[in-house]
């Protein structure tokens, strides 16, 4: 790809970007949120047309007109957003658009036979007839990867394939990538998890603000180099100092909590005021469920929660919010934000009563003031306070979610995958914010599937396995191995 330009209404997404990949090479594409990684790949994958620039495949000039054209050129694409249809079964999803057919009728048996090997390859122990709706998000993501593999493409683009995978699944995927590479298949790998990138990439291409920012060869790949390419400056590494303000007499406590997916497991734990409790586990361990149960958006099936030793009324998000328990959910766009609303309205939504007079009319001035304060305090990058949040990058969106809660009076904030899909720069800022909150006496529960993050930020780590907490690690016991053991159900 040479000199690719792309403009969206109001945004110059790509400015003469060059990109190439050789047969059997794994190239990682990195960059901050909104740097243009997905856009570049969407052009290669036939989703968008470039404004200008040339694309060559095997030395021939092509203009990729559509997704099916890209398919025909041997380009497979795992999109950043999940593109799985939950009304079809696994096999149907894998072969969607390329169904083996006779006289227009689908040959189900052939689909089954052809799907199985790919499922096996990815370690998915499911039948091709399983309805997708029965799978976990991680499994669905793997099905989507199976779909890309099944196209027997020569180039496979993976746009943040691991963002909803956990550690063991990620490891498996990385192994699959190296197998594919050995078969001569080229892979473009986009991720914000620089650890993975160092493990698998032969070469790293960085984008910054829609232009090429540089390339790293195999032996130049390390964390600091990548960061400086992406951000254009040195970033201080996330501090690892322990919380200084932990007050074990105060904070949050859950006793015998039951969540709907694991009705037979009772969960009890504490998060002290001033502490960050990390929560690790494999996908489907039930961490998000616990968060939602505490926050009151999942049904109350039993158990008690306390703030500073006082039991809290449960059963609705409203009650939890009143008690100072807030949730920054894992799916920002679906549950965290109303993406079409502007920053002001999103920040004020949960606390509108504070900005209204007795008869329920909104005082838009104080609403705006609060939003501007949060924009300043959290350093949200936005043209103005009345920009719809859909136009913000992932990191800034996450900060808006935070702004919503910080404009109130937090006692416990639950962060569910706080940095999913967020670039390093923004990550560091969010970590800093979390630590600052903790230092101000807030209890913080951080659910994360990013090992680096859990080990780096937490004061203690709770590990879950199939709905139970299998262990809580203190700082001196922190290690990847200990966490993995607990996460698969072995005691450490």
């Amino acid at each position: 790809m040479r000199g690719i330009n792309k403009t969206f209404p109001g945004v110059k997404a790509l400015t003469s970007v060059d990109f190439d990949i050789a047969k059997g090479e794994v190239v990682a594409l990195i960059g901050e949120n909104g740097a243009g990684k997905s856009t570049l790949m969407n052009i290669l994958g036939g989703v968008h047309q470039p404004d200008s620039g040339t694309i060559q495949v095997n030395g021939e000039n092509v203009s990729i007109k559509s997704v099916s054209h890209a398919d025909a050129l041997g380009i497979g694409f795992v999109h950043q957003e999940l593109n799985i249809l939950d009304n079809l079964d696994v096999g149907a999803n894998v072969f969607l658009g390329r169904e083996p057919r006779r006289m227009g009728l689908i040959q189900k048996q052939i689909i089954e036979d052809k799907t199985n090997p790919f499922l096996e390859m990815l370690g998915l122990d499911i039948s091709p007839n399983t309805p997708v709706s029965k799978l976990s998000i991680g499994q669905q993501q793997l099905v989507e990867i199976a779909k890309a593999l099944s196209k027997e493409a020569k180039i496979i683009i993976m746009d943040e394939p691991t963002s909803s995978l956990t550690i063991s699944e990620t490891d498996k995927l990385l192994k699959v990538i190296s197998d594919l590479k050995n078969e001569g298949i080229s892979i473009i790998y986009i991720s914000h998890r620089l650890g993975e990138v160092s493990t698998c990439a032969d070469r790293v291409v960085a984008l910054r603000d829609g232009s090429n920012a540089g390339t790293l060869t195999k032996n130049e790949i390390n964390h600091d180099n990548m960061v400086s390419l992406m951000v254009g400056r040195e970033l201080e590494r996330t501090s690892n100092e322990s919380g200084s303000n932990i007050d074990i007499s105060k904070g949050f406590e859950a006793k015998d909590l039951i969540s709907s997916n694991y009705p037979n497991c009772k969960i009890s734990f504490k998060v002290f005021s001033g502490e960050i409790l990390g929560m690790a586990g494999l996908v489907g361990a039930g961490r998000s469920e616990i968060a939602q149960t505490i926050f009151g958006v999942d049904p109350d099936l039993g158990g008690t929660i306390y703030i500073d030793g006082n039991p809290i009324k449960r059963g609705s998000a409203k009650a939890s919010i009143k008690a100072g328990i807030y949730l920054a959910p894992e799916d920002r766009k679906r549950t965290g934000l109303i993406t079409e609303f502007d920053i002001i309205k999103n920040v004020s939504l949960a606390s509108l009563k504070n900005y209204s007079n007795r008869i329920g009319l909104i005082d838009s001035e104080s609403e705006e003031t609060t939003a501007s304060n949060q924009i300043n305090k959290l350093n949200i990058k936005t043209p103005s306070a009345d920009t719809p949040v859909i136009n913000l990058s992932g990191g800034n969106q996450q900060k808006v979610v935070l702004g919503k809660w910080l404009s109130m009076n937090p006692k416990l904030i639950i962060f569910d995958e706080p940095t999913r899909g967020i670039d390093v720069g923004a990550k560091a800022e969010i970590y800093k914010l979390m630590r600052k909150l903790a230092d101000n006496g807030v209890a913080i529960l951080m659910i994360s599937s990013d090992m680096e993050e859990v080990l780096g930020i937490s004061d203690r780590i709770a590990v879950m396995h199939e709905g139970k907490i299998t262990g809580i690690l203190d700082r001196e016991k922190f290690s990847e191995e200990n966490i993995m053991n607990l996460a698969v159900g072995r005691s450490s």
Partner: protein
Amino acid sequence: MNNPKLGFVNKNRRELGMLGLLIVLVIITSWGTRESGVQAVFESKFLSSDNLKNISREIGIYGIFSIGVGIVIITAGIDLSVGSLMALLGVVFLYFVTPTETRPDSFLARIIPEIPWIAAIFLTLLIGTAVGLFQGLLVGKLKLQAFIVTLCGLLSYRGLARFSADDTSINISDSSQNLEFLRFLGEGSLADVLTNGNGSGLLHSIPMSFIYLICFAIFFGIILHKSVFGRYIFASGRNELATKYSGINTNIVIAFAYVIAGFCTAFAAIPFCIYTGSVQPATHGAFFELYAIAAAVLGGCSLRGGEGSILGILIGTAILIVLRNMVNLFGYPTPLSDAITGGVIFVGVLLDQHGASSIKKIFKKSH
């Protein structure tokens, strides 16, 4: 990009476009209904005080229930039951004000007592609101699809209305009460109400139903665009889940939108049945739901929820009524009125979606 003029245009693009359409329609109709060559445009039949009174009375009635439907649409719901509910409430209201002997033989006719008309108004409003609450709970709480719940309403309420009127029409003239003042309130003008039927002049050209509409528009305009509850309505319509995650009981917010719709429908049902003088339950208010939806959509409410404004709904209603008035005044065959309405809605929506950029461009260039 940060041109404030453009910002205003952007935000109110739909309303402005439709206002333009309305103005064009008014001009065309006024021009076309001049006495040939003799009169100036402002002396046209369309702009005669009688005609303005007639259309503003209709805009009043249609506007009130369209506001209710519009609010439901903003919560990403829909209300198909409006027309049937109007028929049912019309029957109920007229039962309340007529003596039992004059009613046809049916269960409802037997159990409904004859009461003074003021009480009848309140009870009818109450029943309409209760029906709205029922539908609201089904949609908001039990999470049944609005389309289906209100489709069942469309079928059931009309069936009930017809059954309980034994399929004959109920006439307000059967009442033994003195309903003169009620008639003023329902189809009379402001002058009628203030002077008990003797007024004239400008006030005489302002029908009460239009006054009600103004009150409704101001009240619900403030509710929707300025109040906390209104914000919740928009938020629930855009993204119910995220709204819930902000600690808002969206079930109740959504249910309440249907309560409002029920109330608005009931409120419009009373002047409308006074306007028609009787309720023929098989046809009374037929297709009103479609007109209300069309008005809301023309006025910028998106069926996907979270978008729309009271002003837009008013403009949408006005366009529909003026269109039909135009067909009549031009003396076109009546059937064309619906065909033209369909065509105008279509062109409006098409332009809005695909000609939108052009409007923006005009303002961009001028800057």
